[in-house]
């Protein structure tokens, strides 16, 4: 069928901020959808609150609303834009849930908007556990036995019916929020309470456990003609019970015979039809009993998902793009396959390699959180790898994680985590983030495949593959004969592992290897296993015979990506890498992208001229450089990952584009940095370096408490703390970091009550432009990635701004920056301190670009390619509106963890609010981040002493807005003393009904709690956790409280209006 002509304008809903279980994959799908529909001549209206996305670039859609994705706000956009259709299946669960809410509000009906991709009934049928169960029965498929409950009183009877263990699953949530496994009634009650809260419909399913069964996923597509195809099958390495997002997964399915695979395929087709997904991609999950093959259906998602992004990257089949085309009426056999050009999308990809995805977790950032993998997803990112053997893909995947490991073992890191046999057995039986390596250790210690299978339920086929790797380690130790050498490379061993195992060095292994003629070849990902010629150059390395690289003699530049998402390095860096690629194409230079993150836009085969899906290690990158011989490599956009490679690559003569690698060293090396600042007459907080506790105490004594401490060898604020006294410092030095001469600890004077300022700048070696100055809302001491900020600054004097600009320019000049640079300052009146300088793209580049309407990463790329800023004609921008960035945190996923902010970054993503004034911009940022600020009700204040004066003003203003003020004793006294009407409420330890009781009883709609510096009290902590659990907005710093009150005032006195960025920056388009 040809495309629909009755539709002209389509609204696409994005997925909002990056959170656990909803990451860049929805930027990838959104970008594909925008491009696919634009290409068809539709006018695209887009809403997404996440500024770090490529989809919110002004050229992706016609009308781009960087506004909160709430039903009310989207309704306003609909009213303003009057689209004929809305496509909700590409923005994850957020978009789907928003669409359902809009439908229920009658917005679609009122404005005559048709939901395309998935109708509301379809969404409900797939997402409502009860309807889904009935639907499965209709097509003769079994689902685990289950009982739906809507209130706590039903729990006991349900448990009796199902029997333990019981899986708790809320409806309409993502990534298993609020779900889990219960082994007894107490656990179950607690879990149901949390689950009922998390579910949009207060509906919970208690389900028969099929833990230990094999888990599979199929990615399915259907068109309006009822053609259905399977794009990819995925087998989970971890058995049922570990969320697929936390499982190592493998494509295609490895241990199913054709007969079993086809039954699963038939079931998926039947489910698509029964649920009624008319067009687009869906994901169906199955569990299979390994003893007899019994199959049950776990769930289906009637939308593109993390798995479909993975499937797209694994096969080369662009699911989201095709889904968008199907939604406007095309059928699969009308859509050409970009890769082969001669075939159509109506086929099933077949692959001739093995794909492994491995998640990356960050439990270490959340002390108190148990490192345990269950049915609720915890990972923050993932790496994908491709090989011609599972073993190769698996080891490549492990080193793609960038956790310091280079394969399953043999990299000299095993000892650090060695467990006793008993510990190991326990660890194996409780899935956790170290599982892969624990399996390696178990095999090394001689546990049999059967024994390990009994403990882990992991299919023996996978365990055997791992055993082969471990056995080969032994052979390698015996000497690298040509056969063993070749086999080791075919099985994914890195040069570094081989060096360790044979007592050599990676460099020596490398030259030995090249001498022996053992080099990787690059093969194509082509959707069809070479049956047709492929035109899109999407490569992976392997050790096989034939190389398929079609090197060209055009000018070409390589861009190193950021690898798997982690806290501190995520989509923002991918955004910059994509822009580098776009900029290169604008100036006619070929781009070569290297990355290992399947969620990203950068790993779309459409983004760059050539794509290498490879680990970002020295060896893997150097191999590609040798194959491609680019004229230069861009390392400053992918975050710390490529930056760390710049010095070693530079050393072997690889041309690094832009800022010289030495400048990076000057900014990162403590002593050299100090000299640099000294030379420029810039100030740094008083500081010192300690290699033991005595030294640390001495330094602290000299500069005075509190101090900021951190290990010198970790990044992203890892293990960074504010320490208030000797005792605390002693604990930190001995327990937290174990300082040593190789691992000194950096100690800085903590600048109290300082305003932190982030500056992004771009330089061409001569001129330097200030891209943006951001004033943080929270004071210095809260990691810049976790702090909200405002562009332009709200309280800085013009003189200070001049000083900031001049300091920044001086730094750029002295460092010889060509490209981007980020400086963090702390202003403690009257002094401006430099906290750090990063001669690379920072996390805020996309935000600044959106706020100023200038694509700074592109500008920087062109500068690196020799186009001066003057030639480019770019200028500094002073926007006429206020942009606020707010961070989004994963605390809800880590029960028991305090929600306080500190110098160690914890946020997973960010949102942006834009408006004419700060109050409304901040209000929008809060809405976007899921802090639903109340317009009436009660506010509780409980602040530390030094914040009390400030709290008075806030309480007054809140009263004026009509809020009832509650406060804990001392705060209440202070407020009352200042004449504010306040109700005193007991803390938890002070008797009942205490503050949390009131929160539970829905008397409190906002919590303002600023913890006193040191050991925050348990009472306050429980109050904050309660707020989180009950979804009551909470604020933990006075500065944020001020901004929050300003936002509430804005919301009270003015109407929230929406405006697309194309109207904010009409000149830049």
């Amino acid at each position, binding site marked *: 069928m040809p495309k629909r002509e009755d539709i002209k304008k389509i609204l696409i809903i994005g997925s909002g901020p990056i959170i656990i279980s909803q990451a860049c994959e929805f930027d990838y799908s959104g970008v594909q959808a925008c491009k696919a529909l634009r290409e068809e001549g539709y006018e695209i209206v887009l809403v997404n609150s996440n500024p770090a996305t490529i989809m919110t670039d002004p050229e992706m859609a016609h009308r781009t609303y960087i506004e909160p994705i709430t039903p009310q706000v989207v309704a306003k956009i609909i009213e303003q834009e009057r689209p004929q259709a809305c496509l909700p299946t590409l923005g994850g669960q957020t978009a789907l849930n928003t669409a359902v809410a809009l439908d229920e509000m009658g917005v679609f009906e009122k404005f005559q908007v048709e939901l395309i991709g998935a109708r509301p009934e379809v969404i409900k049928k797939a997402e409502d556990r009860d309807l889904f169960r009935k639907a499965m029965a209709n097509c003769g498929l079994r689902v685990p036995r289950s009982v739906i409950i809507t209130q706590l009183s039903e729990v006991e009877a349900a448990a009796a019916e199902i029997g333990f263990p019981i899986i708790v699953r809320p409806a309409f949530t993502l990534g298993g929020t609020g779900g889990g496994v219960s082994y007894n009634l107490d656990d179950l009650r607690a879990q149901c309470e949390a689950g009922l809260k998390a579910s949009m419909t207060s509906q919970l399913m208690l389900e028969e456990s099929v833990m230990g069964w094999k888990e599979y996923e199929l990615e399915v597509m259907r068109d309006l*003609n*009822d*053609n259905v*195809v*399977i794009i990819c099958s995925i087998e989970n390495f971890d058995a049922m019970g570990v969320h697929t997002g936390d499982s190592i997964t493998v494509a*295609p*399915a*490895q*241990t*199913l*015979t*054709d*007969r*079993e*695979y*086809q039954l699963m*395929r*038939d079931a998926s087709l039947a489910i698509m039809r029964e649920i009624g997904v008319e067009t687009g991609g869906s994901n169906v999950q199955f569990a299979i009993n*390994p*003893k*007899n*093959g019994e199959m049950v259906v776990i769930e289906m998602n009637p939308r593109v998902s993390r798995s479909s992004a993975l499937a797209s990257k694994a096969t080369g089949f662009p699911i989201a793009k095709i889904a968008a085309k199907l939604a406007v009426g095309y*059928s*699969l*056999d009308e859509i050409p396959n970009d890769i082969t050009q*001669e*075939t*159509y999308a*109506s*086929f*099933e*990809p*077949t*692959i*001739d*390699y*093995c794909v492994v995805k491995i998640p990356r977790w960050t439990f270490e950032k959340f002390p108190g959180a148990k490192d345990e993998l269950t049915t609720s997803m915890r990972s923050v990112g993932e790496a994908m790898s491709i090989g*011609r*053997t*599972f073993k190769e893909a698996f080891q490549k995947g492990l080193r793609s994680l960038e956790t310091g490991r280079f394969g399953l073992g043999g990299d000299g890191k095993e000892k650090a985590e060695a467990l006793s046999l008993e510990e190991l057995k326990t660890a194996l039986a409780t899935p956790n983030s170290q599982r892969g390596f624990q399996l390696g250790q178990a095999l090394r210690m001689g546990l049999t495949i059967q024994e390990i299978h009994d403990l882990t339920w992991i*299919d*023996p*086929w996978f365990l*055997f593959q791992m055993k082969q790797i471990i056995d080969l380690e032994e052979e390698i130790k015996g000497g690298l004969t040509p056969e063993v050498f070749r086999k080791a490379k075919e099985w994914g061993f890195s040069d570094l592992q081989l060096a360790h195992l044979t007592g050599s060095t990676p460099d020596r292994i490398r030259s030995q290897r090249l001498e022996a003629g053992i080099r990787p070849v690059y*093969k194509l990902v082509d959707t*069809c*296993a*070479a*049956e*047709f*010629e492929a035109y899109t150059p999407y490569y992976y390395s392997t050790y*096989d*015979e*034939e190389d398929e690289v079609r090197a060209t003699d055009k000018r070409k530049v390589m861009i190193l990506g950021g690898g798997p998402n982690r806290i501190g390095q995520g989509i923002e860096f991918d955004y910059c890498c994509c822009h580098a690629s776009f900029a290169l194409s604008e100036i006619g230079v070929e781009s070569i992208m290297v990355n290992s993150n399947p969620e990203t836009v950068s790993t779309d085969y459409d983004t760059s001229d050539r794509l290498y899906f490879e680990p970002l290690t020295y060896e893997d990158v150097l191999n590609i450089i040798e194959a491609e011989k680019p004229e230069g490599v861009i390392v400053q956009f992918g975050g710390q990952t490529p930056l760390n490679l710049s010095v070693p690559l530079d050393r072997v003569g690889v041309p690094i584009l832009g800022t010289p690698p030495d400048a990076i060293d000057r900014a990162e090396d403590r002593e050299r940095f100090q000299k640099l600042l000294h030379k420029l007459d810039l100030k740094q907080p008083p500081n010192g370096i300690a290699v033991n506790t005595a030294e640390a105490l001495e330094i602290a004594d000299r500069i005075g408490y509190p101090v900021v401490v951190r290990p010198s060898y970790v990044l992203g604020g890892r293990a960074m703390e504010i320490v208030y006294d000797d005792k605390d410092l002693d604990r930190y030095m001995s327990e937290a970091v174990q300082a040593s001469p190789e691992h000194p600890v950096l100690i800085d004077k903590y600048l109290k009550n300082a305003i932190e300022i982030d500056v992004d700048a771009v330089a061409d070696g001569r001129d330097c432009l200030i891209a943006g100055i951001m004033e943080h809302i929270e004071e210095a001491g809260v990691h810049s990635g976790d702090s909200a900020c405002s562009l332009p600054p709200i309280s800085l004097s013009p003189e200070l701004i001049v000083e900031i600009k001049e300091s920044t320019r001086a730094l750029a000049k002295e460092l010889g920056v060509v490209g981007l640079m980020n400086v963090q300052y702390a202003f403690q009146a009257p002094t401006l301190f430099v906290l750090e300088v990063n001669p690379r793209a920072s996390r805020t580049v996309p935000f600044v670009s959106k706020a100023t309407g200038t694509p700074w990463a592109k500008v920087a790329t062109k500068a690196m390619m020799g186009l001066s800023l003057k030639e480019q004609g770019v200028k500094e921008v002073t926007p006429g509106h206020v942009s606020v960035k707010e961070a989004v945190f994963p605390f809800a996923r880590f029960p028991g963890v305090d929600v306080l902010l500190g110098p160690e970054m914890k946020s997973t993503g960010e949102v942006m609010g834009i408006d004419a004034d700060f109050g409304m911009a901040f209000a929008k940022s809060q809405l976007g981040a899921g802090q639903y600020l109340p317009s009436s009700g009660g506010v509780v204040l409980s602040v530390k002493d030094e914040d009390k004066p400030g709290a008075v003003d806030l309480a007054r203003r809140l009263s004026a807005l009509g809020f009832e003020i509650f406060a804990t004793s001392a705060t209440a006294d202070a407020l009352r003393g200042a004449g504010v009407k306040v109700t005193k409420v007991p803390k938890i330890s002070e008797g009942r009904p205490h503050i949390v009781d009131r929160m539970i009883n829905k008397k409190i709609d906002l919590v303002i709690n600023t913890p006193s510096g040191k050991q925050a009290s348990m009472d306050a902590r429980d109050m904050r956790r309660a707020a989180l659990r009950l979804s009551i907005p909470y604020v933990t710093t006075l500065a944020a409280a001020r901004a929050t009150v300003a936002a509430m005032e804005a919301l009270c006195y003015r109407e929230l209006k929406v405006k697309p960025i194309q109207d904010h920056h009409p000149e830049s388009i």
Partner: protein
Amino acid sequence: MKAVLALEDGTIFEGRSFTGEGEALAEVCFNTSMTGYQEILTDPSYKLQMVAMTYPLIGNYGTCPEDMESGRVHVEAFIVKEYQPYFSNWRGRASLVDFLKQYGVLGVEGIDTRRLTRKLRIYGAMKGLISTRCEDPEAMVQKAREWPGLDEIDCVPMVTCGQAYRWEGGPGQEVDLAQGDALWQKKSQFKVAAFDYGIKYNILRHLERIGAEVIVLPAKATAEEVLRLNPDGIFLSNGPGDPSLVTYGVETIKDLIGQKPIFGICLGHQLLGKALGGTTYKLKFGHRGGNQPVKDLTTGRVEITAQNHGYCVDLETLDQDAVELTHVNLNDNTLEGFRHRSLPLFCVQYHPENSPGPHDATYLFDRFAELMTRER
């Protein structure tokens, strides 16, 4: 043990035998199915062919008695990237290596199967010699060249049954066609006489599923013998090699057309095409895999099909007034199925019985049932 594959164009591949010594001279082809190696190995259509799997890991789930598509392995040699010695599946009974050894078939791993596939795609189907004897490569290439190849060897006699037999959930009792109509037990809805040019068991299972009692006939059974059985329908099976060499089949079919409803698959489809006056030609490298899109022109629906054929009926040579094109391959627009406008016959080039492959096209067996009902 080292093994060498020499192609007629002079290309040499080196690998390792995982089944011990062996040698095979055959046409080299590739299959893009990611599952179903046992069904492929036992598909008689692969007679005189060696098969390379494009999916690199093979052997993962072992083998099991239920997944046989005939009584033995027909593939002459089996080529994979990495053989998996450890299998894991609840139905798995024997490892692939033991299975291949049982039938004396050479298995070779360590070959860059993607390179091989690209070669075949670019240069077309080739003859090859694969051997663990590792003689002089030149000599091996020479031997491959000298081998007459599928264009000159009729493989059907090598795989068809020697004697007609009853299908009873599996190959059953042999029967004497001279008894004619009396042979039928008449417990089922339909009586189907199925020509075995190299028939796959799953076809017979499907005929059984639609309610047919089946007598399987040797390829050279005569039209007279068939008509004496007075079946409700005649089935023409898949089979190996060049249809042009199966002249006896074409002659027999000519005599049967119009007499009884006929359903043909693969070689059966090609023979039917020839019997109706069409010609066949050799495809450059064939269609072998489980992901081929075929459009049913009668419904507009696309089905994903299992295919295994190296020859094809030339659409142009069929009398379009007499036959109607019903199925076409969406990858290369080749003919995938047709029916007669007035006579009760239809056929498809691909494998609706799948095994291995998607089940999208099994409705064709039901169409056969409808046709038989209508014509009764």
